[in-house]
């Protein structure tokens, strides 16, 4: 374990990067998920087809492939464009942070599409009808009846998506993102202790996933308060 001393700093900053990717990709995932779900639920045939294509593509392709495609593809394009202006250009890329965030946001977003869609459909029509019968507007019904119930239904799967997001961050180290996994490779080169270093990474990710799981459990409990029946 002494091998790890001296690297705690780097691991710490690597963890910060993981969190940053998590937050950024979470936002993207929710965005893509909501747009995708809305498209699938709409009556617009074209929107439905595009959303269907979106889910098929990103659920059927390995994450690492999407990541490499996005990163190297965009780098290739950017380099080519920049070469037109400056023939000396060797390699231009989008920062791995953004390539990675976009990639996992898109991927997990495609799963989120199904989750949000299912949650929307899961709201009992009876509740919506009752709200309308009471005179609530469409917007009010949406905010006060639909959304709370959707959130409660989507929560377990949403929690799983968040876990996927944080674990997929490790993949981004492959394109050079300076998060914990990347740090460990450097640490290994220096200390010659691969097992130790990778275990540290494992523990860091385990901690993150535990926190997320506990947070989701807490939210589920809160969201299901009204479901507890009297004895």
């Amino acid at each position: 374990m002494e091998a790890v001393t001296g690297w705690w700093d780097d691991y710490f900053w690597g963890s910060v990067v993981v969190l940053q990717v998590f937050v950024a990709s979470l936002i993207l995932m929710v965005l893509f998920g909501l747009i995708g779900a809305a498209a699938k639920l709409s009556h617009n045939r074209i929107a439905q087809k595009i959303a269907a294509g979106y889910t098929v593509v990103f659920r059927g392709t390995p994450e690492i492939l999407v990541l490499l495609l996005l990163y190297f593809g965009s780098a290739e394009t950017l380099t080519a464009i920049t070469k037109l202006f400056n023939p000396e250009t060797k390699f231009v890329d989008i920062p791995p942070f953004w390539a990675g965030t976009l990639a996992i946001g898109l991927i997990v977003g495609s799963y989120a599409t199904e989750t949000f869609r299912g949650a929307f459909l899961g709201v009992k029509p009876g509740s919506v009808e009752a709200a309308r019968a009471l005179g609530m507007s469409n917007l009010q019904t949406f905010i006060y009846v639909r959304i709370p119930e959707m959130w409660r239904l989507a929560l377990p799967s949403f929690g799983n998506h968040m876990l996927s997001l944080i674990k997929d961050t490790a993949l981004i180290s492959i394109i050079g993102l300076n998060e914990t996994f990347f740090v460990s490779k450097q640490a290994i080169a220096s200390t010659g202790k691969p097992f130790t270093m990778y275990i540290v990474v494992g523990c860091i990710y385990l901690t993150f996933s535990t926190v997320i799981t506990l947070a989701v459990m807490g939210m589920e409990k809160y969201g299901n308060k009204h479901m507890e029946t009297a004895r």
Partner: protein
Amino acid sequence: MIFDFELVADSIPKMLMGIGMTFQLLFLSAFLGLILAILLLLMRISGKWYLSWPAQVHIYIFRGTPILVQIFIIYYGLPQFEFIRDSIFWPILREPFGCAILALTLNTGAYVSEILRGGVLGVDRGVLEAGAALGLSARQKFIYLTVPIAARLSLPAYSNDFISLMKATALASTITLVDMMGIARTIVSQTFAPYEIFISLAIVYMILTWIIQKTFGRIEKYLSRYVKPEGLA
């Protein structure tokens, strides 16, 4: 920037040469993983803490950490220990294939055992009570009632995990295994044509996914022939 179709036509056969490795990784770990999952499930529902706990710990660790890290720990990390290098398992653990199978198996075993547990919990309590009222033993109830019903309930989630497993096999390329992904990366590094190569490979994976989904769909349909239209018996 024109799309180099010639390159695609040239590369696809090359990438498909890796499909054998992809399938080996997929089916072997799926099979071993299922066995592990059943074992973990039985340990989980045994009611005995010394069986239930280790199973839960395993599931917790393997679902809570990235599979890439798991692969690296097994392939790069284990050789750090002399007792590993001296053990009878070394011939397996020395090879990237053995390590990949081990990692994938341990990983999918954890996920599938939770899926099976969900299936077991989903069995209608009333059906089990009827079995008890008729005098069936706990073992008989499990074999004749729980297992068939839980298997059917687990199928949709299991098919999703099977697809995830297939996608995870692509990670084997990071420890030098020559599967489709590995070949693709080699070609890209030589030709600098990420779009053509990766997009065509993506299409191959999507086709495989589609085939898997259709197959499981058929199985689900057959097993659900006695189910009410809403979907739950």
